[in-house]
């Protein structure tokens, strides 16, 4: 051992306490400085954007709210009088709201879809909010009793007058198609994704063919085939409901997309997880259900919700087979002579966009919330 000079020896006796970071790093001023005004270029871009907003927002605001017509019973209300400008025709939306919601569902029966929608949103809240009691039972009720109840309420029978699906329309059809598609496509997608990774050649081939065929065909084609070609192959007298055919088409189509999304998640699970499960003696289905799928689905939540959102908006395509969803019902009313003015089309389209946006944005926010909540694996 070599000798060390005494004045080079250092032994710490007092430990330093951690200090708070400097205040300029945090808060709104810190954020603004860091993100908007950190360099001359950023300052220029920020100012340009501010100018753009100042140029675009006020006229839009004026059209939507200030110059808008809020009340009225016919087109007279929304026609420009003595040279003044007229903005959005909200009176039109107001007068047609029931049609936009239910289509041509008989007016005296509209309490039925209303009730179904109320039960749906209450049930959804029960199932989706983690703090709710007995959620497991809620999920079962929503998957078993609720569809039966809804079918009875919407279609009728057993004491209720029957309302043919051709009279359904508006938001009602949008929700029926989207919710059925979402609920049916997820389990279908899971089975197809597992099937595509199966070691059994038959199951694998069936899954691959199913996925590739449905994914390779445009949804419009699927809907056309369902409504025009399918009846040609069915025996005389057998008549499938048009809405039901559309539902099946949409569910299978989305299921194929879902399968590929979920397969991506399955591939992201390390081999060790499969081996860990196998080494404990868990069967294939147990290890999938308890170990692999919970992790894989969590990874692909963004992709799954992406498909859901895309499906929700694609419901408008049922228009081409003569069913009228929200957008279809709104568009159909543009030709109403009673309301025909230049501003009803933009007003109606903005209204449709706003309703779609509220639903899609809710799904998006909920998925982000779920992601954060389920992010236990990396939790420190």
């Amino acid at each position, binding site marked *: 051992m070599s000798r060390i000079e005494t004045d080079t020896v250092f032994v710490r006796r007092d430990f330093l306490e951690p200090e708070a970071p400097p205040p300029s790093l945090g808060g709104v001023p810190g954020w603004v400085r860091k993100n908007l005004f950190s360099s001359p270029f950023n300052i220029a871009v920020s100012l340009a954007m501010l100018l753009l907003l100042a140029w675009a927002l006020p006229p839009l605001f004026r059209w939507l709210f200030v110059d808008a017509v809020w009340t009225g019973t016919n087109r007279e209300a929304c026609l420009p009088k003595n040279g003044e400008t007229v903005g959005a025709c909200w009176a039109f939306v107001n007068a047609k709201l029931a049609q936009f919601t239910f289509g041509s569902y008989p007016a005296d029966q509209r309490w039925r879809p209303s009730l179904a929608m109320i039960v749906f949103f209450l049930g959804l809240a029960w199932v989706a909010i983690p703090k709710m009691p007995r959620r497991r039972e809620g999920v079962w009720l929503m998957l078993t009793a609720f569809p039966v109840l809804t079918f009875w309420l919407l279609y009728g029978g057993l004491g209720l007058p029957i309302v043919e699906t051709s009279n359904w329309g508006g938001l009602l059809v949008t929700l029926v198609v989207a919710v059925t598609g979402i609920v049916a496509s997820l389990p279908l997608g899971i089975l197809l994704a597992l099937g595509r990774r199966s070691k059994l050649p038959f199951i694998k081939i069936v899954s691959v063919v199913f996925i590739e065929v449905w994914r390779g065909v445009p949804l419009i084609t699927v809907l056309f085939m369902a409504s025009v070609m399918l009846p040609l192959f069915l025996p005389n007298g057998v008549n499938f409901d048009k809405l039901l055919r559309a539902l099946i088409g949409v569910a299978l189509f989305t299921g194929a997309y879902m399968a590929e999304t979920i397969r991506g998640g399955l591939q992201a699970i390390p081999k*060790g*997880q499969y*081996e*860990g499960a196998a*080494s404990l003696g868990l069967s294939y289905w*147990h290890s999938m259900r*308890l170990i692999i799928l919970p992790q894989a689905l969590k990874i692909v939540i963004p992709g799954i919700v992406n498909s859901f959102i895309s499906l929700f908006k694609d419901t408008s395509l049922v228009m081409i087979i003569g069913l009228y969803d929200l957008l279809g019902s709104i568009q159909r009313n543009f030709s109403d002579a009673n309301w025909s003015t230049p501003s009803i089309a933009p007003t109606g389209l903005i209204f449709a966009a706003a309703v779609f946006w509220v639903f899609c944005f809710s799904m998006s926010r909920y998925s982000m919330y779920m992601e954060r909540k389920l992010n*236990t*694996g990396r939790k*420190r």
Partner: protein
Amino acid sequence: MADIALAATPASETAVEMIGVNKWFGEFHVLRDVNLSVKRGERIVICGPSGSGKSTTIRCINRLEEHQKGKIIVDGIELTNDLKRIDEVRREVGMVFQHFNLFPHLTILENCTLAPIWVRKMPKKEAEEVAMHFLTRVKIPEQANKYPGQLSGGQQQRVAIARSLCMRPKIMLFDEPTSALDPEMVKEVLDTMVGLAEEGMTMICVTHEMGFARQVANRVIFMDQGQIVEQNEPEEFFSNPKHERTKLFLGQILH
């Protein structure tokens, strides 16, 4: 808690029997005529250079790898393509991996109770009691409600051992259990394994921890190029290796 004791009543004297086992990965001949017989209560350490087939050998014992030729009999059950038998074997054979392979979405307690509940059909409450018993034995009962990501590597590996023990296995396989750990955590895992050995568990360990091998093994096996090159009692194996390759290997790792 007498019912949680691990000492199993031997159904037969032999726990694992491998006869002329051969395996290929594609063209590559990984296991060449491996013969190995492990008695109940015996503690085997397998060592050898990387790529020598030691991990593959023990992974064949619970059929994480399939052998193409030869016979493997575990606890009286021959491993074939019969999935039922494979699951039967896996229920009785615990395995601890190099990278722990804990389930990150479940708490430590849930990691330990999952298999007893779903495979052994044990009531949840009883499974939790068993899990707490073994978590206490590996000295981390206070972490039961945390997630694996919140634990250190050494703690995770001890949980992995407890998770296997909850199935009350008759045989434990260890696949380089300390190789992925930071040096200061190796000891806590080895101590747990030594404790297990002292209770008479049948153990087959792939490890480079020669101190551990000296302390607990009944037999040390040296593998190279897919073959068992030499096996002996630890004292003799380390002090008087017979084969050239064994000497070379020991020279490299025991500096």
